[in-house]
């Protein structure tokens, strides 16, 4: 079976990468191919990596509060290049923003307290 390829991307200028790294490692330990972008990635950098690495799933981590400004840019760029990965988001995202994010194409927003198991199961379920 082909391994699921995941890109964990840190968007925005903040350096809070604990969550992104824990999730990346948990996904890798569960048998997925995981690429981590490192911090401070622009939407364009993320989309370029997503295409180069031919990923199935894109996990966006953001804690700076700039998600409503930055996510649409990523989705736009992905659409323009006809790439349609499963897109997930995590970090500090107020629940009132979730509907807006989901309607623009983020499949699920995982909040603080989510287990890595939930994320693994969700990805396998969606892409399995």
């Amino acid at each position, binding site marked *: 079976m082909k391994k699921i390829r995941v890109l964990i991307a840190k968007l925005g200028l903040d*350096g809070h990468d604990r969550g992104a790294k824990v999730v990346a490692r*948990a996904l890798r330990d569960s048998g997925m191919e995981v690429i981590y972008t490192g911090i401070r990635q622009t939407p364009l950098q993320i989309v370029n990596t997503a295409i180069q690495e031919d990923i199935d799933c894109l996990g966006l981590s953001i804690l*700076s509060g*700039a998600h409503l400004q930055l996510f649409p840019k990523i989705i736009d760029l992905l659409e323009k290049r006809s790439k349609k990965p499963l897109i997930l988001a995590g970090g500090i995202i*107020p*629940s009132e923003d979730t509907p807006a994010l989901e309607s623009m194409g983020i499949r699920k927003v995982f909040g603080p307290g989510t287990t890595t198991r939930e994320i693994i199961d969700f990805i396998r379920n969606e892409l399995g």
Partner: protein
Amino acid sequence: MKIKDKKKHWEDNVLKKVLDKHPERKKDFKNLSKIRIENLYTPADTEGFDYLKDSGFPGDFPFTRGVQPTMYRGRLWTMRQYAGLGDAEESNKRYKYLLNQGQTGLSVAFDLPTQIGYDSGHQLAAGEVGKVGVAIDSLADMELLFNEVPLDKVSTSMTINSPCAILLAMYIAVAEKQDVDISRLAGTTQNDILKEYIARGTYIFPPLPSLRLTTDIIEYTSKYLPRWNPISISGYHIREAGATAVQELAFTLADGLAYVDAVLERNLNPDDFVPRFSFFFAVHNNFFEEVAKFRAARRLWARLMKERFYVQNPKSMMLRFHTQTGGSTLTAQQPDNNIVRVALQAFAAVLGGTQSLHTNSRDEALALPSEDSVKIALRTQQIIAYESGVADTVDPLAGSYYVESLTDQMEKEAMAYIKKIDNLGGMLAAIEKEVIQKEIQNSAYILQQKIENKEETVVGVNRFQDEEAKKSHKLGVDPEIEERQKQRLAELKDTRDNELVEKTLDNIKKTIHNQENLMPAILEAVKAYATIGEICGIMRQELGEYRESVNI
């Protein structure tokens, strides 16, 4: 020996019978620093403990019991809430509100573009302006930020690292405009670049040139701002990134040693600058572990300074620190529980002898805190200070068999890490080899697994959950701020003396290459209203930019 024998007897005869019938809750009790916790501590656990050598008196070597002789009987700790949002005007209002509420020091949070040296108009700043702190582009913003705040009367802490020299220069310039003698300025700049590579991530330049900037600031303030703490060596972010309490302690002090080494290369006497070093720790939930960590930190730093650098001034041996309750211990679930966590943590920080304290607000796992939550957080400190009675005697937990034994163990374990780092060639080398980053990532991963398999309990998250709808609020950072800030910047560039700006920027470039202290050149540029983006732009060009490794 008598106690040991008696304890053995008690274990064999009394304890065993009970355990046979009712085993303990866990097979093995260990804290997250992997220190085994015994069922009972007695004087036998502190054998070899020499009160005068290991504890001593407060205000005296090795400062285990505190850095001042009177501690909180003389003066309470500084209640310092970290705040800053939106633009300078809005933050200025929040500062005045906090000062009116009885807060005794300011703590400035800058937005991320400011922290990594971009003007509000930079493309990477899009969406980030004014979000996690105040947006500062030039001296004009800084003048607004401290409008009607008398800089000779407040002490100000600024969480700024890579572009620290620029923000400090702006603060000095504002003080001069207020006619305040700069030698009277009191406060702290974080200016701890090493932990940015390890944990916090707001670096700009590579480690070596960054260390030069840090050193320039230390050297400059030691001459002109004698009451300024030029650096706040921070374990907080190391801990928040996942380190254990012992790792936090060890890596922070190891960073401190690296800074002392770096400044010594300027041929200064350690007693001329080490007394102004300050520290910044996190405080988490394991109450006694935290108290022991603070006590061990003081003792270990004092010993290291004396043994490694032969300092003479007792102030060079004193580890003074700020504490913040642990952001990562807060839960988005049942957020009111966070009030209790914060109170418990704050209590440990006070029993650990902190010099200043920030208490987190209950809603910080969800968003930036609301004014109401900030008030509860501040009141928590006031209740501990004025109602609990713990501030009435110095270091009240000293002499507890458990606390003394744990203090010893934490000091030993931290020292073992410091020796490992020595063997790697010091902290800079250890960071470059990514040894420290890996240690922290490992600890973060292990803790997450323990929470998931319920070895560690997080109330409301993996036990005692509610079927509540998660409430979350959004702090209204005005979306217009970015536009307003950009506009203000454009106006500034139209009205200032641009030739002068060019000249001062050129001078910074020259100073970078002639290896002189950069502070005076930066101060000139700031006074000419050069922007952070312009100054950092030159520095990026001349010093290079750091790229992290992306191994997981």
